[in-house]
């Protein structure tokens, strides 16, 4: 009995020493090494792929956002601004709150979700001046992160006439810009085609 408890005690001593050493190696040295590699070799990515108003990589001081993080383009009342391409609906905070990533987690039969989809469909149809049937699914649904940086090519092209009108540009120019900005599938078959909304908006502002 006594030898058992002594063995137990010894195991706890070994366990504690092992855990403390692992904490230093795995919890401090390892992340520190990766941080050094990131900051030296890949600083733009390591710091969040920030972009400036000119569409080029930027530092924190003159960034207008991150090319990986979607953002709301609405007025102070929450109404969509007609001169910008609109992103998907978002469940992160009040919408694209990058400090509170989240999906809606509404289930397929949830009455709130069904109602929200109907309202969004009517609102987008009116805003864009299109029929309700033309609106693609991504425009009506919230993403998993609430920070989805992209929309489908279909939703981007749907917004072209309204953007052209609001900015006084030729529709064909805006359409050509969108088409040039479609990100293909990785390797040609991974994921889905998409358009990065912030990068597209910066490009359309420079037209």
């Amino acid at each position, binding site marked *: 009995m006594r030898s058992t408890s002594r*063995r*137990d005690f010894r195991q*706890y001593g*070994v366990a504690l020493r092992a*855990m403390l050493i*692992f*904490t230093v190696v*795995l*919890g*401090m040295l*390892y*992340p520190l*090494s*990766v*941080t050094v*590699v*990131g*900051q030296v070799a890949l600083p733009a*990515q*390591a*710091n*969040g*792929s920030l972009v400036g108003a000119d569409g080029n990589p930027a530092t*924190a001081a003159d*960034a*207008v*956002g*991150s090319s*990986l993080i979607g*953002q*709301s*383009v609405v007025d102070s009342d929450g109404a969509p601004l007609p001169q910008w391409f609109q992103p998907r609906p978002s469940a992160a905070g009040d919408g694209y709150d*990058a400090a509170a990533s989240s*999906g809606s*987690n509404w*289930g*397929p*039969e*949830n009455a709130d*979700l069904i109602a929200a989809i109907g309202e969004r469909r009517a609102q987008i149809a009116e805003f864009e001046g299109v029929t309700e049937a033309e609106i*693609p*699914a*991504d425009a*009506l*649904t*919230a*993403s*998993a*992160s609430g920070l*989805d*940086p*992209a929309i489908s090519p279909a939703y981007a092209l749907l917004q072209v006439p309204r953007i052209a009108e609001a900015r006084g540009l030729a529709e064909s120019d805006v359409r050509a810009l969108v088409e040039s900005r479609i990100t293909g*599938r*990785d390797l040609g078959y*991974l*994921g*889905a085609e*998409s358009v990065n909304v912030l990068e597209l908006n*910066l490009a359309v*502002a420079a037209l």
Partner: protein
Amino acid sequence: MDGWLALLQVLTLVLVLAVLYRPLGDYMAHIYTSRHDLAIERGFYRLIGVSSRSEQTWPAYLRGVLAFSAVGVLLVYAIQRAQAVLPYSLGFPAIPEGLSFNTAVSFVTNTNWQSYSPDVTMGYAVQLIGLTVQNFVSSAVGIAVAVALVRAFALRKSGTIGNFWIDLTRGILRLLLPVSVIAAIVLLAGGVIQNVNGFTDVTTLSGATQSIPGGPVASQEAIKIFGTNGGGFFNANSAHPFENPSAWTSLFQIVLMLAIPFSLPRTFGRVVGDNRQGYAILATMATLFVVSLTAITMFELGGAGTAPQAAGGAMEGKETRFGIAASTLYATATTLTSTGAVNSMHDSYTALGGMMPMLNMMLGEVAPGGTGSGLYGMLILAVIAVFVAGLLVGRTPEYLGKKIGPREIKLASLYILVTPTLVLAGTALSFAIPAVRADVEGTSIWNPGLHGLSEVLYAFTSAANNNGSAFAGLTANTPWFNTALGVAMLLGRFLPIVLVLALASSLAAQDRVPATVGTLPTNRPQFVGLLIGVTVIITALTYFPVLALGPLAEGLQ
């Protein structure tokens, strides 16, 4: 079109895993059977006070596992409680007691269930010295237990099963850490962040302010996936663009999470001296994986249900850059392993599509399962399959020359009873205790009706199987769920480990009986079919009634 592209994506995955199978499996066999210690390991053993030449009996091996895990729980608990005074904590306060307990247990048991939203709860100090560390060590503990069982099949008349401290250390230093360093850098190149900047406020196009988070994410992401842990740095987990920026990083993560579990059968075959035994286990795992993946992808592309029909596609809770096929592949990989990371929100899947992750976990996470836990779970089912076959033909069952007698079959039977008991009891108690039910229905459940039951069932399935994914609408940061899920995670992790190590001991103690014409060959397609049948039937019989009340009812209404 979508279907063909989805198939190409799967073929790519199969090809990469096939290329990894032999070298990674052989390397792991080498790590866990080598008599040679690296210089750095010898130094480490001296510091912690163990001898690399000493072998442990199964109770001693188990005491090592339990002591190490208990220290882990206490340490992670203490770190969270001390968050207010730790540096790099972003000003977040100490984590409350109940949540600290749940989170400590969750990360030590390789579950990584998160009752909290990390974005607004966890500072960098807790993430690094608490959670990142457990991501490594909990995974290494799982592999250690699995290799102890594997070696036991090869041992003869042995009273010992190996040394836990050696297995733990080698798994971390020779496998998990080096691969994680490389994986973290690959993820960094893909856009995953790695900094200690805190929040960066930017003025957006519309003149509003957006707080862009920072954090040492890539280093944690690598081991979160490679160690089949799954706890996100951010609330949105691998759906967050800073954790998983593109379709190729998503596939890279899927390869990482499947690499060890799908290669361990090779390690098994190698150690027991018959590679075809490994192929039989691999074929079983791969078959279940492909069937499950096909089902969920068809359900989601089909987009049944009122909301997906109204929207014109099941895109609620899915990211544009992934689309449907890359989301369902991730969902399948994460729940057929013990990972639990998500790149889409399972709660918003179609009813039958959302049932598949649950079903995957209910299979016992054996196709291919978590790092280590998948292989030992599948070997337990193989023992049961051999026993069933023995009953059918009236012979004493054997597996790899070891007799499957009353003691072995008792241990295996107890093993397969543990998680169903925890899942069904936990779910039932959530609705049977009046005060708890009021709290569960009033506070925790997010989607009303049948889907609400599914949320609770998913939570206990995830916790007891140490997965960690969720129907995340459920508010789990309540006294009931923090406690009940914490207990389910603890028992769901350590009771099976006790039984596996006891089984390892009784196998190691036996001599090897020579195969005769009456021996069931366990390396042929016939056995693969039997093993698949046993796995599916056990799961179906256990869980069909409760699935009928939740996702099946919702999907068929």
